[in-house]
């Protein structure tokens, strides 16, 4: 297998087992140069193990890892052109900020005399100039995070690995750091591989996202790609597309698939994935914000009679929980754009119609 020129990290058929547990299961991924790449998934999905495999803290049970074309599968961490920002920063408590940042410089081909200037430069980059002589325990969470960042970036790695770097920060600071990290990455042009369990964070920051589950990569794509076109039920649910419908294939023509809902309603949806057979059972999802709750069915929409079960008012939107005749639950987000806020007034127990544009149906790949 040859390395494409713009490839940064290549993970080829990598498996990592801990005893009987398979943490990473035959994962293949390619991260491109200068890309902000997120590994997204719930805890225990193998995303952190994958990051640690790239960093060299774990040795794969099988497979190959290449960084900028060279095989690093068995290289120890200190011989890899990557640096890591640890989840809890892992700053050296016995060293000052400046000493922490300078820690790795002596292993670089760089004259001692140039160290101080590089440290100053790195601290300015993360807006921590003037904090050189502080100790880590005298810094706030956000400042520690910046020191960890400076300590890694000063070594000018080809790839920066970040293990849930924002998880320990409070929400406001987290948002601020998201913007800062993103602009830092853009200005430095370094590849960032970022582990997170927070879907909003992944969507907001990444160029591409790999959604992981049970040690496998379920889907890789742009934020809009995984958000709008989830391929599996797991990806759909993890990204909030919780409305899963079951249907049966009736006809296929011109890139459209005509499906029949259990109540007999027919709808034509965009055909994606493998060719489907007639009468094949399929499942599709519709995102909650693409569903609407109507008192009377709209002619241009697919309609499903439902009963309103619950209502959660979020201010800008209202979340409606409804149930169809077969007992399946669906969630609808309606934007409160009207002058009086909430538009339709339904109450729990009242009948309504779930309406949506069939183009918003996304067919799922059955795993």
């Amino acid at each position, binding site marked *: 297998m040859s390395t494409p020129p713009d490839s940064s990290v290549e993970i080829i058929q990598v498996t990592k087992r801990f005893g009987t547990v398979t943490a990473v299961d035959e994962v293949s991924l390619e991260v491109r140069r200068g890309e902000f790449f997120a590994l997204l998934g719930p805890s225990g999905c193998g995303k952190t193990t994958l990051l640690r495999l790239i960093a060299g*803290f774990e040795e794969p049970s099988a497979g190959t890892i290449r960084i900028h074309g060279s095989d690093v599968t068995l290289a120890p*961490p*200190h011989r890899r052109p990557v640096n890591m920002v640890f989840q809890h920063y892992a700053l050296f408590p016995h060293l000052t900020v400046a000493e922490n940042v300078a*820690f790795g410089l002596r292993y670089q081909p760089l004259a001692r005399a140039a160290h101080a200037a590089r440290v100053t430069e790195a601290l300015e980059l993360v807006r921590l100039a003037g904090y050189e002589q502080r100790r880590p325990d005298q810094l706030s969470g956000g400042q520690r995070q910046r020191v960890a960042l400076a300590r890694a970036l000063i070594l000018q790695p080809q790839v920066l690995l970040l293990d849930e770097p924002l998880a320990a920060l409070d929400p406001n600071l987290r948002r601020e750091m998201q913007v800062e990290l993103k602009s830092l990455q853009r200005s430095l042009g370094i590849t960032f591989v970022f582990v997170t369990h927070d879907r909003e964070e992944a969507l907001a920051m990444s160029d591409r996202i790999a959604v992981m589950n049970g040690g496998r990569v379920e889907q890789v794509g742009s934020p809009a790609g995984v958000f709008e076109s989830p391929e599996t039920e797991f990806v759909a649910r993890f990204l909030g597309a919780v409305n899963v419908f079951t249907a049966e294939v009736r006809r296929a023509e011109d890139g459209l698939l005509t499906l029949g809902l259990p109540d007999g309603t027919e709808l034509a949806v965009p055909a994606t994935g493998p060719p489907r057979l007639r009468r094949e059972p399929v499942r599709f999802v519709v995102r909650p914000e693409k569903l609407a709750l109507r008192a009377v069915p709209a002619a241009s929409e697919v309609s499903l009679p439902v009963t309103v079960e619950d209502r959660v008012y979020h201010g800008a939107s209202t979340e409606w929980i409804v149930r169809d005749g077969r007992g399946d639950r669906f969630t609808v987000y309606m934007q409160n754009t009207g002058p009086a806020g909430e538009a339709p007034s339904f109450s729990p127990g009242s009948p309504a119609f779930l309406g949506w544009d069939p183009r918003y149906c996304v067919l799922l790949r059955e795993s």
Partner: protein
Amino acid sequence: MENRQRARTAYSLLLPVWLVLGIFFLAPLVLMLAVSFAQRGTYGGIEPVSDLRSYLGSGAFLANHARSFEAIYLKIGWRSLWMAVLTTVLCLAVSFPAAYYLAILAPRRWKSLLLGLVVVPFWTSFLIRTYAWMFILRTEGLLNLILMGSGLLHRPLELLYTQTAVMIGLVYGELPFMILPLYASLEKLDRSLLEAAADLGAGRSESFRRVTVPLSLPGIAAGVVLVFIPSLGQFVVSDLLGGARGMLLGNLIQNQFAVARNQPFGSAIAFELMAAVLFLLLAYAVYMKRRGEEELL
């Protein structure tokens, strides 16, 4: 009000230990200090002083302390100091890898068993364990039996009643007191710091030198104090395993009380040794405090 009550509770909790230490430790200590200024009686014990004023005025009360600075005793003191330093250094050298293994490398399920093994020797009296070393080290002992049986040696090693034997006994006896504090500080060492060091380019030895050792300094200091001080006053090991020429300060003191029946002189040396130890402890405390303050800056 509440504060006062809390203080009262604190005092009442401390009362028993104050009583025990006061009656059985502090009072004898004061007594010993007083005796160290007295004259030895002809048949042991203390010779009553007839003219206290002239006794104090002539400086005769300092005779025992002055005597302790004679060359022969200074030589013993110097040897004891040297042995204690060597014991401490050897203990540190042997304990660090062991503690490192226990704290960082050992599989979790073996950890408590292995730690238990470090403490197991305490189940047997130190005296008996030192006797056991006699059986190991003597000419027809276990060690020579093995060495000669395996053909490595043709003549037995003359180990027992040498400085080497004393050294072995001392290091053996003090080992747990070094391993345990080292283990405690290494155990607290955040592994991700070692990973961070590796990630930043430090190889194993570099990350050991720049991260592991500095962060285990408190444990090293505690271990050094715990090993050095008892080694300085040891007399059982040197008595049983050392020869006649291997006398240490501990033996000298014990000798003055038990054999020479010169309580005043024995008290004088004992007190001086204690003063030296206290001085070292103070230096240690000052050092640790300064380190602590540095960390706050």
